[in-house]
């Protein structure tokens, strides 16, 4: 029992990170139909910028803020320099552009920072908290709380504010949104900024637990993408559920089956979803007959 609880705790912690990465995929996918494989690099940058800003003397909260803002700015730059000029290109080209951008960012991070593994102190110490017969790190609670805050904030943003509704309208029908006067290029910019900022925040929160280095992005992008697919591409609720389910599956696989194959869980899920549930858990039903 205590064992199971322990695996569930670690599963929910990584699941919250996957959910945030999946949310980043979802936001950009909704605004532009682009699957942004550089999403994992945003998480990496969040962690790395915080590490180096903190080492340079900035207090941790300021370093974390700098990391989120800096990464958001980079997301905007990526949209302006790489995605917008290729508007109208086929999906294959856009996928390659985002993969190219992610390789570029990784290469740049390796030069600007270094190839070492880094971490910074946890926000509220490292003393595990006992719950029933299992323990949880205070930083895990920060990760979970961060994810809850981001999802609640975005939900309010999309349902309660004019700007948020403009983003929703654009994702439903770009042309119609343009016709009613929505500034769709700005919506694109905003989506990239939000998505990159959220990715960076996930990186800031999880780095004290998992540590970071210039090359952690790819694995995170693939997992987050799997989570987004599981939930149904383009659905924020799906991103949350998909991330948590994937994290739990991984935690349980590592605990009960094999820690070597815990990463396989994500990709078996991808194949299973595609074979049996192509629209994901919450995706729109396709009307095509096959």
């Amino acid at each position, binding site marked *: 029992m205590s064992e199971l609880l322990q695996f569930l705790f670690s599963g929910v912690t990584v699941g919250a990170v996957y959910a945030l990465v999946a949310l980043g995929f979802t936001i950009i996918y909704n605004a532009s139909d682009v699957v942004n494989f550089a999403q994992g690099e945003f998480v990496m940058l969040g962690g790395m910028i915080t590490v180096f800003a903190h080492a340079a003397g900035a207090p941790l909260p300021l370093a974390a803020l700098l990391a989120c803002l800096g990464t958001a700015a980079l997301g905007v730059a990526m949209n302006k320099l790489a995605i917008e000029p290729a508007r109208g290109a086929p999906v294959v080209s856009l996928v390659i552009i985002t993969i190219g951008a992610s390789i570029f960012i990784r290469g740049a991070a390796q030069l600007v920072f270094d190839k070492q593994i880094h971490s910074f102190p946890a926000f509220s110490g490292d003393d595990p908290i006992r719950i029933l017969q299992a323990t949880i790190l205070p930083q895990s609670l920060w990760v979970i709380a961060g994810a809850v805050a981001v999802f609640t904030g975005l939900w309010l943003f999309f349902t309660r504010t004019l700007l948020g509704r403009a983003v929703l309208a654009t994702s439903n029908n770009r042309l119609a949104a343009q016709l009613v006067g929505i500034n769709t290029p700005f919506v694109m910019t905003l989506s990239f900024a939000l998505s990159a900022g959220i990715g960076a925040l996930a990186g800031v929160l999880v780095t004290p637990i998992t540590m970071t280095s210039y090359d952690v992005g790819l694995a995170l992008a693939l997992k987050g993408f799997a989570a987004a*697919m599981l939930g149904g591409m383009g659905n924020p609720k799906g991103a949350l559920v998909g991330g948590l389910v994937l994290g739990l599956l991984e935690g349980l696989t590592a605990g009960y089956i094999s820690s070597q194959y815990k*990463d396989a869980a994500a*990709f078996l899920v991808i194949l299973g979803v595609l074979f049996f549930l192509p629209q994901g858990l919450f995706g729109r039903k396709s009307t095509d007959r096959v």
Partner: protein
Amino acid sequence: MRLTTKTATLLALVALIALAPLFFPSAFYYRVGALIFVNGLAVTGIVILTGWAGQISLGHAGFAGIGAYACALAPVHLGLHPALAILLGAGVSAVLAWLVGRPILRLKGYYLGVASLGMGILISMVLNNERDLTRGPDGIDVPDLGLRAALKTAGLDLSNGEFWYALCGIVLVLGAWLALNLHDSPTGRALRALHGSEVAARTVGMDVPRLKLQAFVISAVYASVSGSLLALQNRFITPDVAGFMHSVEMVTMAVLGGVGSVAGAIFGAAVLTLLPQMLTVFAEYEQLVLGLVMVLVMIFLREGVVPSILRKLRGTGE
């Protein structure tokens, strides 16, 4: 007499492969050449899948991994001759592609990319983790093909570099010839038709999922044979051959040169194989440059380098 694209491509390819050694400054370039041909073969498969059938795969390195490890394992465990192991790898890849592709290709959109991504990573994970069989990330020795020794007794004495340059070159020409024949066959025309408009293709009675499945299986065989040749040539293989980055490299090579044309794809394979060799001095910058090249080509030369240049030439010439 006007040359068809097919004849022109094949003649140019044969001439280049035959004449390039005259300009090699050192024997090392035989090896680089053989690597280009191996990559070119895999990328020719991508042309069939992506350029003609319009499907993207992000897991083709998985098939290369199957081909490579078939050559490493089958001779030891099953007692197969390495040449037969190439066929075994190709067969396994084809069956796997068929199993994965059949349910996926009924769906619209980029789902094949996603499914193949998952499949490729699972394959590389098995190769990394099943240490008892594959020896894990450290890699495994591959038996000798034995053909060079046979040629030697027959009176043709080639150095190792020359032999693999010639063999891979011949296989690449064969692969390109088969692909170009496919291009002009009813199946090839049907593939390109469905890429143009799936609805139209379906309306005239084409079995769209089946055609896509054929393209996926054929391209998997190309990737598998390319993996086998790489393993036999190096006499050693690591699970990196099946890694995600290798899959991305294949797609990038194809798209860089021009994913719709075999000549373009082979050109792309040549450029991206040579680039890291030339950048060894700047190894630190390799990823930076590779990423930048991918983005810039996709933005400014959407059809790829070769078709874009050909179009320019024709535009001014006619």
